[in-house]
């Protein structure tokens, strides 16, 4: 047991499988076999920081140590990428603003409240981006508008609440949106009027019981999250999304992500410049929720 030992033996295939399986069951992320060495490099920092001498010991730690919960969160944090920025994949956002939001306005006109969920929101840029677009659209004045963001990492959720960002978060921000940010000595802060629509929570997307906390939502953004998941976890999360969406609600995935290989009851909605998914409006739809074949 030596802190920051550099002599941790390479991760054996069995150790990789045990750790990968354990982490996968916890949060859905699955590391491909040929990425084993990336996992090895990232986790070896944890192994040595804890003064352990092998990845097998680390697996043991994650299973039995009194601090196992905190450590599992750290492991996930080390293994996942929290990469995000404002106005990411702008063309989809424009399609959302110009084509989806008007439909949602019709959909929710009676109750005059709109709820959007950014699932796997990382440090919050996506959540604030959506709030800005909704504000800009002018369609929801005097409505109750809420955007919920959740993430499995406490660290990013804390950053999200802080709402202060450095230059790299703005690498794709069109100039017209600069007015939604205020300069501070530490970076640019999201305007309080936008901030007040946004709420953040720390929970795991696989925990469908906790997901109930977002209530019924009109749209879900889950971009660049499911690509890291295995099929089973994707299936469960998509099912949760289906349950959380109100009929006619939309699901937006990242570019190059699709539900092509998943059995799902979502239908494809063709927008002018994008393809998104929609929960069928009619409850008597031929598509039973969890298991319509492609």
């Amino acid at each position, binding site marked *: 047991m030596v802190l920051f030992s550099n002599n941790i033996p390479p991760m054996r295939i069995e150790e990789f499988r045990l750790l990968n399986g354990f982490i996968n069951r916890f949060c859905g992320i699955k590391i491909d076999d040929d990425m084993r060495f990336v996992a090895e490099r990232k986790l070896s920092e944890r192994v040595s920081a804890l003064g352990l001498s092998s990845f097998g010991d680390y697996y043991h730690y994650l299973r039995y140590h*009194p601090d196992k919960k905190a450590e599992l969160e750290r492991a996930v944090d080390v293994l996942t990428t929290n990469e995000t920025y404002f106005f990411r994949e702008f063309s989809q956002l424009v399609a959302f603003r110009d084509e989806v939001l008007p439909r949602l306005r019709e959909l929710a006109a009676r109750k005059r409240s709109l709820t959007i969920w950014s699932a796997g929101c990382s440090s919050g840029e996506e959540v604030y981006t959506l709030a800005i677009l909704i504000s800009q659209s002018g369609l929801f004045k005097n409505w109750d508008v809420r955007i919920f963001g959740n993430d499995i990492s406490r660290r990013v959720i804390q950053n999200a609440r802080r709402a202060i960002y450095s230059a790299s978060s703005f690498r794709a921000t069109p100039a017209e949106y600069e007015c939604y940010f205020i300069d501070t000595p530490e970076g640019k802060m999201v305007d309080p009027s936008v901030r007040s629509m946004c709420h953040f929570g720390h929970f795991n997307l696989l925990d469908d019981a906790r997901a109930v906390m977002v209530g019924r939502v009109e749209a879900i953004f889950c971009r660049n999250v499911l690509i890291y998941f295995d099929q089973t976890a994707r299936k469960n999360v998509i099912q949760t999304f289906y349950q959380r969406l109100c009929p006619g609600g939309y699901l937006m995935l990242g570019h190059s992500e699709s539900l092509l290989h998943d059995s799902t009851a979502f239908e494809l909605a063709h927008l002018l410049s994008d393809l998104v998914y929609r929960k069928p409006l009619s409850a008597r739809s031929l598509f039973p929720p969890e298991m319509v074949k492609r």
Partner: protein
Amino acid sequence: MTLQEIRTALTSVDAEVRRQAVADIEAMEGKEIGALLLAALGDEDWRVRKEAVNVARKQAVRLDILPDLVDAICQEENFGLRNAALELLEELGTRAAEVLLDALPQVPDYARKFVVEALACGGDERVIPALVNAANQGDSIVAAAALDALSAIGGTEAELALRAQLVSPDSFHRMAAIDGLNRLGAIVPWEELAPLLTDRLVRRVALAAIGRCGRVEAAEPLFQALSEKSTYVISAAVVGLAQLSSGPREVAQEVANRLSDLSQEIRRRLRFLLAKGSKDVQQSTAYVLCLARDRESIFDIVELSVSYGLSPSIMAGLQQWGQGAVRELLDVVSRIPDSRRPAAIELACEISRKLPSVDSELVSKIRSIMRASMVAKDEDVVIAAIRGLSEWSEARDAETLVKIAETSGEDIAIACGKTLLALAQREPAAVESAVRSAKLDGPAGASLVTLLVALGGPNRFQALEEALNAQDAATRKAALLGLAELDGSKVADLITFALADESVDVQMTAAAVLGRLRDEDGRAIGTDSLLLALTGESSGVRAAAAQALGETGDQRAIEPLRNLVRSTDQDVAVAAIKGLRKLGEVALDELLLEALGHEDEEVVKQALLSIAEIGGSRAISRISMGLEHAAWDVRQLAANLLGGLSDRAAADALRTRLDTEPDELVRVTIKQALSKHGEIT
């Protein structure tokens, strides 16, 4: 609920009442149960169907409803029922295979596709002939499903069956077959692939297969494909080229030669794929562009490493590019946003570290960029730079590193500790003088204490004793680990007292250390305190003490540990068996047999290890029980252990298991174990 109540509840208008009734079916017996369950599978509410699927998953075989499930997928009125039945049959896998095989020739044409789909999940080689048959029959939808199923099943037989379809007169079959082989990542001989490249319809899919054949002839069509318009074709070609480059050396060399003079236009296309392709295409493209030494793609390679990490091939490609790649990476460090900088720094340093030699001008460049980045605002940049400096640091860096450690958080401090340790190998005096006056507490305490221990020196004891009073628990833990390396009798009381530390983690460390402490005569000093710790509050500490007692070699620990094998705290049970193994206790028969049935697989694994060590006439039959365990890692361990026992019964057990073992890694282990018994599989 009684049967009658369930029957009534199932007709309720409230879906939740029906769902609950279905859940209650699980415990019921009787002929009618199967029929009720089937009806529930066709319920109009999906939650009821879902519950029915849950129950049926466990009970379908017992209730003998498999033929009814096949009927359910053949009817056309109730889609919900059909999908639920299909899902079930798929999940039942091999258990449903026989019924499905019987049904295949009899079901109506429109339903055959579903039967084939379900068979795909029952994946074993028995069903292959039936699938080949289905593929050769007229209906193209069934044929497609059958070829799909073959690729889902995989294995040599399935591959051969798919390869046989490559010469089918029906181009649709050829296409589905090559697509299936691609999904399996099968290696198809060049001679079988070459004719497909002139086949207009199939060519695009075939391109994705030719890289795997490892033949130099495959290079030409792949390079040609890079000039085509279709992104799909270019993607397939680049994946193929990446595969060829990882193949035999002469082939890789040929590809590398041609890559070095790729036209600007093709480079531009490849860069587009690197930025926008799917995950796999991005990885292959990055590799190919490294081999092409494409300077302009470095930025996107860094992006890729941030998003997904780089595959070993890309790392090898960067390595081949050598100092040039390091220079490019260092150049981008100053041009990219903070969030990417750590990745660029890490890559540059990792590659430079593995190069056989690095020019002195490049070393200076690395040093100056790391030193500048060490004081950056972003914590990840700082950590990457400190780690990067490890190989290249000089005496003058020692003091800066200690200062940074003292004034930053734990992660930075650990990075500093590691780099200082590496530096101490080259410049011990400089590191020692820098650490001497450092404060051993706070986030950096643990790292600096560890460093101090590694450096040795006369004042260690006093410094460590002081560090035991640090506010930071990790520092106290590091101090304990350091004390453990000193004379046992001098430090025993300090370490024993740490069992009363307010931090569980420190207590656990104290217990582990106590197990190893010896007096001058080599006798264990910690047994009494550890026995006391076995009654502590935290299961973590009890487990640490149990395991440490094994290290003491003290036979007094045997009885208390035996009592703990039955502990309901899994970590304690695991540790108790470990401890007993270490103590060489052999009279564990009954306890171990019990432990084999423990719900936690780690307990089972420890029991298996113990049984193997103790040996005896019943060891083989007991370890063989492990071959049937639900967890793959238990089966693998059992196989490994049986490989080490030279007895025919062990080989028999392994051979029998090999017939049904579904897990590839476990199969490999069984085969290795059998080969130790002189059997070639």
